[in-house]
């Protein structure tokens, strides 16, 4: 190795992060098979990672980092096995290399996202076990104390063991519903990462992991249209990430974004994936959301946005997955098709009561009221929105607006 000191440490940490990200799930899976205990397997991987943190900066990065981690984890696993007589017969089954059977990784994901676990634990467990994040990283990303994350994971692991949550693929009859559970977890990662409160690095990590999981699921379940839909949705968001913040770090609204900073090749790829998936004619919420984002991504300028198509897609989305937030988004699109009055009527209709605590509902009303020449009401709505958001980027935009309002 030519690098020395901090630079070498840095290289070792980067390599370790990459290895953990790509292989932690597979290693845990192999170890579950070895020692038959979900929680212990994960601890072994973490122990091996700690060992690597100590050794790699000194000894250099090994030729096959994943094999190095496995060897260390397996050695410790064998110690555990030797201590525990009831696992003795399993020693005979130990072998390396363990095939990275796709089914094994899928099993792990489905176990982490089992519907008998609370949603927050599904997310924490998946990030920890499948993506290899530390409890501290998960806590930062979701603004939850690390001890809370650790408790959730511990409780979930105990329930998996004690309640008999199986470590295997769901049977055919359950697969659709269970895949939907997994996708919800991935979608939560995307949402939290995309509009989160946890700081830029934590957020970026979450979006990366969401894409990685979605790509993995798509590879393993190529016939599930909603998996492809969610993957396309994540990739479309990422492709436009370059335009979302100004040089000063402020959030830039879609209408004002510099579209030359979007990754147009990535957009084309995602749209292609979406188009191929749509041929199956099994539309679902993720495909429809991706299609809406694609409409925005493909418009050369804000003025060229195909709002009629977007309103239509929102209608379809409301039909399969009705939600007040979706109605809100539809109203925004409707403004460009039917004018601010129609949009405001839509907002003040059905969803009003249910979205009273949602800052974007008030911010959108403010926008429409300004358009309609009702500045006092607009100001009151913006002030209400400001009180309801904790996201600094959104607060900045609202402050800016209020400065200009009478």
């Amino acid at each position, binding site marked *: 190795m030519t690098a020395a000191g901090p630079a070498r440490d840095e290289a070792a940490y980067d390599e370790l992060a990459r290895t953990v990200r790509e292989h932690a799930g597979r290693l845990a899976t192999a170890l579950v098979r070895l020692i038959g205990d979900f929680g212990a397997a994960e601890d072994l991987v973490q122990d091996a990672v700690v060992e690597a943190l100590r050794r790699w900066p000194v000894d250099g990065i090994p030729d096959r980092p994943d094999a190095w981690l496995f060897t260390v984890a397996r050695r410790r696993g064998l110690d555990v096995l030797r201590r525990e007589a009831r696992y003795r017969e399993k020693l005979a089954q130990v072998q390396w290399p363990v095939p990275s059977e796709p089914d094994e990784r899928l099993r792990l994901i489905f176990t982490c996202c*089992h*519907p*008998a676990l609370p949603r927050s634990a599904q997310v924490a467990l998946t990030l920890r076990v499948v993506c290899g994040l530390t409890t501290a990283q998960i806590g930062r990303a979701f603004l939850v104390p690390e001890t809370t994350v650790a408790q959730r994971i511990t409780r979930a692991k105990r329930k998996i063991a*004690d*309640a*008999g*949550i*199986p470590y295997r693929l*769901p*049977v055919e*009859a*359950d697969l659709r519903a269970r895949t939907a559970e997994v996708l919800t977890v991935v979608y939560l990662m995307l949402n939290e990462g995309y509009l989160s409160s946890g700081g830029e690095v934590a957020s970026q990590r979450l979006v990366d992991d969401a894409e990685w999981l979605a790509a993995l699921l798509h590879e393993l379940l190529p016939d599930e249209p909603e998996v492809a839909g969610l993957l396309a949705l994540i990739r479309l968001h990422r492709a436009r990430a370059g335009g979302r913040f100004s040089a000063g770090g402020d959030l830039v609204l879609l209408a004002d974004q510099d579209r030359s900073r979007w990754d147009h090749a990535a957009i084309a790829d995602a749209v292609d994936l979406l188009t191929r998936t749509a041929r199956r004619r099994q539309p679902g919420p993720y495909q429809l959301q991706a299609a809406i984002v694609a409409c925005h991504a493909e418009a050369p300028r804000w003025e060229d946005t195909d709002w009629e198509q977007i309103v239509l897609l929102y209608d379809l989305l409301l039909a399969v997955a009705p939600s007040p937030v979706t109605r809100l988004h539809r109203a925004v699109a409707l403004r460009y098709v039917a004018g601010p009055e129609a949009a405001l009527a839509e907002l003040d209709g059905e969803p009003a009561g249910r979205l009273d605590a949602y800052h974007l509902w008030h911010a959108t009303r403010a926008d429409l009221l300004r358009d309609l020449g009702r500045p006092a009401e607009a100001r009151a709505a913006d002030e209400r929105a400001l009180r309801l958001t904790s996201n600094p980027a959104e607060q900045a935009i609202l402050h800016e607006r209020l400065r200009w309002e009478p």
Partner: protein
Amino acid sequence: MKYVLLFVDTEQFHADLQAMTPDDRARAFGLVDAWVAEHRGVIRGGNKLQDAHTATTVRLDGPEPVVTDGPFVEGKEVVSGYFEIEVADLDEALRMAKSWPGCPVIEIRPLES
């Protein structure tokens, strides 16, 4: 693994049952009988409990045992019966519970051994 399925009645369910015609009620019980027959192979025991008004609760957490009338939690939902089953894992227990044609709530709890 062994699990107990705890069946829970609600006031609404009770009222609906009362409001049924004798024929409809017979049909509803028929579905339950069919479910039990279908799962006979994994059912190890169980029974229907008599109505909640027959329940008596003894509390031993004070200085003296206290006997009160009624189930241990006062509420609109009461345990009305149970089955002990033996299946491979929670997924199988869940599938069974999801196809139960009777009362609207089921708690699934693994047995210690």
